[in-house]
């Protein structure tokens, strides 16, 4: 049957379509009828040729596309490299702190093992750390089983060369900390699945994951040279005074960058799970202490900034002072009227409490809150702890907190507050991330630049003529404040007479304008014991010398050159008890 013209209806398009189809259908008949049979063949050849050409063109396009524009087949004989799960951590100078390294997991497929006893013997001799029970389980399992992870390429080669059938390996990335315990608490560690659990590893967990894809490294604020010096000197102090715990911090006051964060006891993050909890505790961030007299710096700053006192204002320290329900004594009473500088140098509790009273409860509370002492220290570390601050600010709370009692804060909170007081008065967040070169962070103004300058000089005078003499390093103009806080004994329900927290808050150099490069150093020892001399292990005895030695070693690394020594407020006579002061 063929289509007739009438089949397509009357309209123009239908008529044109039917005509085309009619012509196609009767093309060969027309050719034969016109007595040109070669035309018929030509059309057929052309038609077949066109089909071939189209087929080959399609093949050529497909082949070109497959060869040039797809990944298919690229992996011939090649296992793609395992991409790191986490980016590297480096210090501020690019020194490697943590990296994912290629390791191997060991698998056993018992279905392919001919001689189980030979496999057992060979694996035990090559891998002494392999648990027997685990090996036995794998040898008895009816399928391929994971046996041991974290094999280094050398160990893998050793096992591979045994040529054991049924023993195979899978590449895996494992987090490695090549520096061992150096900087362990700032760097942190990860769990078996590669997720950060502490330190920078936890604080920047998602960023570190993102960096892995680009093969980039995250620079921390730590300076490895400063970190090593701080740890070395802290641990030497620990060896001498045998405290329960200890902390050393070095912070750039203008950027809030933590250049060193050392803890005792510490741990090796390569085997963090094997370390006791006490060793993994980041005391700088997660432990709170009654700091004792290092708090007097805050009270003095509040007094200066509020205009209540000047360095030469006098305070009567001749008699114990009654404030709230407390009677405040000086441990090494001078029985004198003291200037503010002398109050700081002799660490007079009476003088400080009188200053606090002059400032007033509300204003002192406001200042302490502005210094960030009533909140967790602002820093990326997740372990930063909340302080124990007075619930009600009254005369008693004011008296206690003015000289560092009745308020428990982390060493990082103290460092942050001091940095704010010493950088011209801006409270900055601390950071463990490297700031861009020349960066200066901005923060709320907590005291005036003038107060900052005066506090620097008062702290300097405490090292030249007060309780911090043992931290004095010629040419570096070190300033500081010692502190010794008695620890509360929850069993006896009173302050212990034998357990204390000794600390030294130092700054260097104290000379020059407020915007000059300046570094804060905090050394703290928890429950230090007397050394061979039998001296009371106060901040001036145990922490100040350590801070001084740290400063001496790190000054060249931070570019602080020796200069002419300054001695502000020299007309203030030193007191013989200054090095043993405060409580």
């Amino acid at each position, binding site marked *: 049957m063929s289509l007739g013209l009438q089949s397509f209806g009357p309209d123009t398009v239908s008529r044109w379509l039917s005509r085309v189809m009619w012509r196609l259908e009767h093309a060969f008949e027309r050719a034969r009828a016109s007595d040109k049979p070669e035309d018929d063949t030509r059309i057929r050849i052309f038609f077949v040729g066109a089909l071939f050409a189209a087929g080959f063109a399609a093949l*050529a396009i497909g082949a070109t596309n497959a060869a040039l524009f797809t990944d298919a*087949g690229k992996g011939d004989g090649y296992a793609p490299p395992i991409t790191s799960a986490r980016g590297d951590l480096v210090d501020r100078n690019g020194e490697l702190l943590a990296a994912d*390294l290629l390791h191997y997991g060991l698998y056993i497929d018992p279905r392919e093992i001919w001689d189980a006893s030979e496999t057992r013997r060979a694996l035990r001799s090559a891998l002494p750390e392999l648990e027997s029970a685990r090996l036995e389980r794998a040898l008895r399992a009816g399928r391929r089983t994971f046996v041991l992870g974290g094999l280094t390429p050398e160990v893998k080669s050793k096992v591979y060369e045994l040529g054991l059938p049924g023993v195979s390996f899978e590449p895996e990335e494992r987090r490695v900390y090549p520096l061992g*315990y150096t900087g362990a608490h700032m760097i942190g560690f990860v769990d078996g699945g590669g997720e950060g659990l502490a330190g920078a590893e936890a604080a920047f967990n998602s960023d570190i994951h993102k960096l892995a894809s680009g093969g980039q490294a995250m620079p921390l604020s730590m300076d490895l040279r400063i970190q090593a010096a701080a740890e*070395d000197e802290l641990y030497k102090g620990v*060896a001498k005074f045998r405290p329960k715990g200890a902390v050393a911090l070095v912070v750039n006051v203008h950027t809030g960058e933590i250049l060193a964060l050392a803890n005792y006891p510490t741990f090796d993050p390569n085997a963090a799970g094997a*370390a006791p909890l006490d060793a993994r505790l980041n005391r700088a961030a997660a432990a709170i202490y009654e700091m004792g007299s290092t708090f007097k710096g805050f009270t003095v700053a509040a007094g200066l900034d509020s205009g209540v006192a000047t360095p030469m204002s006098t305070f009567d320290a001749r008699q114990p002072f009654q404030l709230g329900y407390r009677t405040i004594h000086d441990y090494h009473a001078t029985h004198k009227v003291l200037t503010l500088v002398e109050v700081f140098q002799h660490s007079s509790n009476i003088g400080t409490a009188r200053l606090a009273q002059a400032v007033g409860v509300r204003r002192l509370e406001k200042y302490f809150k502005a210094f960030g002492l009533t909140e967790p220290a602002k820093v990326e570390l997740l372990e930063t702890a909340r302080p124990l601050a007075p619930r009600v600010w009254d005369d008693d709370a004011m008296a206690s907190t003015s000289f560092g009692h009745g308020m428990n804060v982390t060493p990082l909170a103290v460092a942050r507050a001091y940095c704010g007081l010493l950088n011209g008065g801006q409270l900055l967040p601390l950071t463990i991330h490297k700031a861009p070169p020349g960066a200066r962070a901005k923060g709320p103004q907590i005291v005036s630049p003038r107060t900052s300058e005066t506090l620097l000089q008062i702290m300097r005078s405490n090292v030249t003529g007060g309780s911090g003499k043992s931290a004095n*390093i010629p040419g570096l103009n070190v300033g500081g404040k010692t502190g010794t806080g008695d620890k509360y004994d929850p069993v006896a329900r009173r302050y212990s007479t034998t357990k204390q927290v000794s600390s030294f808050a130092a700054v260097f150099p104290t000379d020059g304008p407020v915007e000059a490069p300046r570094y804060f150093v905090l050394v703290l020892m928890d429950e230090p014991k007397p050394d061979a001399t039998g001296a009371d292990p106060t901040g001036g005895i145990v922490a100040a010398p350590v801070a001084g030695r740290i400063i001496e070693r790190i000054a060249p690394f931070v570019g602080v050159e020796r200069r002419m020594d300054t001695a502000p407020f020299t007309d203030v006579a030193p007191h013989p008890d200054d090095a043993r002061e405060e409580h």
Partner: protein
Amino acid sequence: MNLLDRRVRGFRLVDLVLASLLVALVLGTYLAKTMAGRERAEIARTERQIGEERARIRLLQAEVAHLEDPARLERLSVAYLGLGPVSIKRDLEPRDLTDIARTAANTGKLPGEGMPVKPHEALSFDPTGRAPEPAPEAPAQ
């Protein structure tokens, strides 16, 4: 005579041309795929080598970081060389040389001369509480 109608030894020229084209295309495709496969294998081998070298470089970097660990270097330098950090009191800038020369001329003594040098002490314990890592043996004399 039409070019399409020409015959060579009984075969039409157009058939021969198309057949030759067909053979050439088949051969060309085969050769192209073979060569591409060889190149792919070569690229894969090179990439594998690069991957292995990268892994080795990272391993070496970690090893260097471990060997240059300041705590380790300090332990070794104290143990074998008796060296320690230089006191800042002995640190001078070139601009200080004139003053030193003047002092030496006036007093006949260099600043710091005769200053007692306290031997640097190595850390006497492991702060992690583990058994200390044994120090490597001193090189044979």
